[in-house]
C-alpha cells in the first residue's frame, strides 16, 4: 500500500476531493497545516512594525491506496491543484506496511 500526502492550497480542497471521488477514491484524511517552501510568505504592517507571515496556511490530504493506484491519484491531485504560481504544493509518496479497518478488523487492502 502507498500513502500519498499532498500539500495543497486551502481553496483547492474541494476540487481535490471531487477529483478523487470521481475516480472512485473516497477515503482520505485532511489536516490543516502551515507550510513554507519556495513561497516565502507575505509581509504585513501592524502598528507600524513590519512582520512576515512566513508560514502560509495549507491543506494536507492523506490518501492510502493499494499499490499501483498511486500514479492515478497523483495525477488527479496535480491536475486540479496546479495554478502555475509558486506555492502550488508538493506530493510525497511513501510505503504503508499494513492497514486496519477498526469497524470490522479487516486488514491490508481489504481495509482501504
Amino acid at each position, binding site marked *: 500500500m502507498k500513502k500519498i500526502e499532498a500539500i495543497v*492550497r*486551502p*481553496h483547492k480542497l474541494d476540487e481535490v476531493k471531487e477529483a478523487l471521488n470521481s475516480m472512485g477514491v473516497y477515503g482520505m484524511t485532511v489536516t490543516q497545516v*502551515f507550510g513554507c517552501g519556495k*513561497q516565502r*510568505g*507575505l*509581509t*504585513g*504592517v*501592524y*502598528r*507600524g*512594525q*513590519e*512582520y*512576515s*507571515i*512566513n*508560514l*502560509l*496556511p495549507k491543506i494536507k490530504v492523506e490518501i492510502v491506496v493499494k499499490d499501483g493506484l498511486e500514479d492515478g491519484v497523483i495525477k488527479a491531485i496535480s491536475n486540479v491543484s496546479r*495554478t502555475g*504560481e509558486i*506555492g502550488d504544493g508538493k506530493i510525497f509518496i511513501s510505503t504503508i506496511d499494513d492497514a486496519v479497518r477498526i469497524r470490522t478488523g479487516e486488514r491490508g487492502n481489504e481495509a482501504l
Partner: protein
Amino acid sequence: MDSFSISELARGIDTIWVLLCAALVFFMEGGFAFLEAGFIRAKNSLNIVMKVFTDCSLGMLAYWAIGFAIMFGLDRAGLFGTSGFFLDGGMDHVQLRIPLYAYYIFQAAFAMAVASIVSGAVAERMKFTTYMIFTVLVTGIIYPVSGHWVWGADGWLAKMGMLDFAGSAAVHAVGGWCSLAAVIVLGPRMGKYSEDGSINVMPAHNMHLAFLGTFILWFGWFGFNPGSSLSGLDMNIARIALTTNLAAAAGGTSGALFTMIRWGKPDPSMAINGALAGLAAITAGCAYVSPVSAVIIGLIAGVLVVLAVGFFDKIKADDPVGAIAVHGVNGTWGALAVGIFAEKGGLLYGGGLKMLGIQALGVFSVSIWAFATTFIVFVILKKTMGVRVTPEEEAEGLDINEHGIPAYTELTAPPIYGSGHGHDSPAGALSHIGNMKI
C-alpha cells in the same frame, strides 16, 4: 398620586441621568476588558479580563472604603480629602442636587477606569496577586489624591481654575502615566525586542474582541462625558455629547487614514486607538469647545496616537494595547487643548497664554504624581512580592498558570506568525501580495 415640588422634579431628572450615565461608565469596564484581551495573545487574555474584573470588584470596594473620601472629603491643604470613609457621613460640604450615593457610583466607575487603563499596559507579564494590591492602591489612593487636586472641594488645581471637565488629565493622563511607570519597572514581554534591537510583532489574537471593547467604550463615553455635568438640566449636555462624538469620529478617521498613507493599509488597531485617543483628548474640553474645535482635537489625537505608539515601542516601553499612547499622551493633549480651544479663555479665543499655562501646570502635576507614585509602588512590590510572573509562566501563558484554565479550551491556537523581524523583510514585499495565491 403624589404631588411633587419643582425641586423634587429637578432632583429626579438629575438623579436618573447620573445613574444611567453611571451604568454606561460602568459598562466601559467590559470595554476595557475586551479591548485589551483582543489586543494581546490568547494565552494571557483571560488573565487580563480577570484583572479588569478585579478593578470592578476589589477596586470598587477600595474606592468605597477610602478612595472617595480622599478625593471628595473635607480638604486638607488643597492636597487630599479627609472625611467620608465608607460613605459614612462627612460629605455635607459637597453641594449636589443628586443623592450622595448616586455621585459615588458615578465616580467609582471613573476610579475603576484608571486601574483598567494600567491593566492593559502591564498585560501578559504582571503577576495577578501583585495586581490586586496595585488596584487597591490606585483606586484607593493614587487616583483619588490627584483627583482631589482637580475636582475636590478646594483642591489646589481646582482653585487655580484648571478646567478638566470629565478627566482628560484627572483620569486619562493619570492612567496613562501610571502605565508608563509600571511598564518601565516591569520590563518588556519576553521576545518583544530582539537582542539586535529589532521590534517583534505580537499581533492581536482576536480583533473582534478588540472592536467589541471599542464599541462598548465609545458607547460608555456617552455617559462618561455628558454625565459629568451631574445634571440633566444643564443644556450643555447636548454640546458635550456632540463634541465627544465628533472627536471620536475624527480620531478614528485620522488614525485610519494616517496609517493608510504611511504604510499602505488602514490599520484597524490604529483606527481603534485613534477613536479612543480622540475620546480621551476631548474629555477635558467637551463642555468648553466648539464642534469644529472638537473635530480638530480629534484629528490631531488620531495622528498623535500613531506616532506615540511608535515612539514608546522605540524606547522599549512595551505597552501591548497602546494605553500610554491613548490615555497618557492624548489625555495630556486634551488637557492642553482646553487652553487653546476653550471658547472662554482659550488661546485661539483671545484668552492669551494664562489658561494654557494653568492647564499645562495641572496636567503636568497630576502626571508627575501618577508616574512617581506608581514607580515607587512598583519598585517596592518588585522587591517584596515580585511584580512579574516567572519566565516559564510567561512562556506557557498566564491564564493556565495563574487561573488554571485558558480562555479558549476548544478553539486551537497555533503559532502561525513568525517572529517577524521587521528588518529582514525587503521593503518592497508588500507589493507582491497582490500576486499571491494561498
